[in-house]
């Protein structure tokens, strides 16, 4: 018994190196970020205040960038869910060999570099790209559409780039559902759609929420996709922070913008977590 207790005590110490590393290089920088965001003036003379936050929030343009970014994430995440749920559903209904192939195709994009994937989309969505050629060949439009450098384009690309983050937790959630429950529902006379909306979907909600959180946080901070597909005309929070920090060297303002952006994202994540807890409480008592 005593041996087990010492073993436990020794095991504890194994977390220390990482805890120390995180304290130094994760927690400390974030604390510094908070402190600098409260600097009253740009030269960081030491006087503290809410001047940077006020400056950000007072400018309608900045506020619009923040709202645009949060909405962009919501649109792309919704599209991920609509496209990803059926794919996860399909995965749970095919043979093991097909599953192996499917999971490979789902994971490949997430392992492949984001720059590479976004580059492919520039060629696909360009004025003389595949999509426009197809649209014009089908006679849907006489002019090439401006997909590149448009919000629609960014939403499409973000959906593809972040899709695996949505599909993977959905697969896990769907595999956990007891197949007897759907069989029982069908045997008792509920149709396939009703069974889906009353049994499968509610039981897979933990996976839905996990997928939404992962895809949403990735979409709003997807610097590469936003800047390459959006070009210089569309501005989102990551690029705004980067420009303020590096091009204008305005650290306090960039820090306040980072804080507002991070807090907004964390609030949304917190809301989703609370939502999933309340749903789980209602489902499982």
């Amino acid at each position, binding site marked *: 018994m005593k041996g087990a207790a010492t*073993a*436990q005590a*020794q*095991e504890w*110490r*194994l*977390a220390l*190196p*990482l805890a120390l*590393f995180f304290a130094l*290089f*994760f*927690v*400390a*920088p*974030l604390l*510094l*970020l908070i402190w600098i965001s409260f600097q009253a003036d740009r030269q960081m003379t030491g006087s503290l205040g809410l001047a940077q936050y006020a400056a950000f929030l007072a400018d309608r343009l900045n506020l619009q960038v923040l709202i645009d970014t949060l909405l962009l994430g919501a649109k792309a995440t919704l599209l991920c869910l*609509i*496209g*990803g749920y*059926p*794919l996860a*559903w399909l995965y749970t209904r095919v043979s093991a060999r097909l599953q192996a192939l499917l999971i*490979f*195709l789902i*994971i*490949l*994009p997430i*392992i492949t*570099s*984001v*720059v*590479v994937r976004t*580059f*492919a989309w*520039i*060629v*696909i969505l360009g004025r*003389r790209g*595949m999509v426009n050629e197809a649209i014009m060949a089908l006679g849907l439009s006489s002019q090439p559409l401006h997909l590149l450098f448009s919000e629609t384009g960014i939403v499409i690309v973000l959906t*593809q780039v972040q*899709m*695996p983050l949505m599909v993977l937790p959905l697969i896990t959630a769907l595999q956990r559902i007891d197949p007897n429950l759907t069989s029982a529902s069908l045997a008792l006379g509920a*149709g*396939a*759609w009703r069974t889906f909306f009353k049994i499968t979907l509610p039981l897979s909600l933990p996976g839905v929420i996990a997928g939404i959180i992962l895809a949403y*946080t990735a979409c709003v*901070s997807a*610097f*590469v996709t936003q*800047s*390459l597909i959006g070009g210089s005309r569309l501005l989102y929070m*990551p690029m705004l922070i*980067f420009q303020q*920090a*590096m091009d204008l060297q305005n650290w306090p303002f960039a*820090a306040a913008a*980072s804080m507002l952006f991070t807090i907004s*994202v964390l609030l949304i994540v917190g809301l989703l977590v609370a939502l999933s807890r309340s749903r789980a409480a209602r489902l499982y008592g």
Partner: protein
Amino acid sequence: MRTSIDWEALSLKAVFGLIALVTLFVLVAPTLVILVLSFTGEEALQFPPASYSLRWYLALIDANELRDAFIISIKVAAITTLVSVVLAVAAALAIARSRSAFARALETLFMSPLILPALAFGFATLMMFSLAGLRPSIMTLSIGHVVVCVPFVLRTTLASLAQLDPALIDCSTSLGASLAYTFRRITLPLISRGIISGGFIAFMASFDNVPVSLFLQDTRTQVLPIYLWDIIQNQLDSRAASACGVIVIMTIILMVTMERVAGLSRFMK
């Protein structure tokens, strides 16, 4: 007797099946486009290319800046993976079996870089290093990368530890094996697939990282994804296509290998 068709079940299967296939097509298409495009024989990037050749792959041989960026990225990814694996595996061993609130809080802390906007973290780290008088180097890049890559290794290692039967450890120690010996001969072999998978994901995440590298690199230590981002944004050089082709081929080969060696896909779910 009349055979009735369950139209409702059929309609659900049709709708879900159709959307799933469209999603799958959209997921795979960009990778195929890059592979085909990288063999273009033309000056301008157009899909499908009018002719095919290896000229842009051959052009990579003299692309010195590209090669330098590639080497820096590989170095940073290797250091990041090594440090992440050592730190995260040790931490996973400490918190996996504990039910205490403190252990859960630590786990949340270690996983939080996944959720926080990486760009804000990169900027915060830049300010700290800069105030401490540290200039951008491979070391500063690696430190930043370790923080964002640790969650991947931690997650896969915790997943494989959860499947490890604690009785095996108890057996080994009660039969007189030391903790170190037990770890080396029992625990490590049983969780190695999780560690390898996590290490691989961390390597690829570091190799691909832009938001943190943006702040922690300088012109001497430019990493590959930022170099590519730059040439795609500014000149759309056709060498970008062959460089992306190389990355795609390398990724596919590594992924197939990792699937064989460590059952990678089980740890991604």
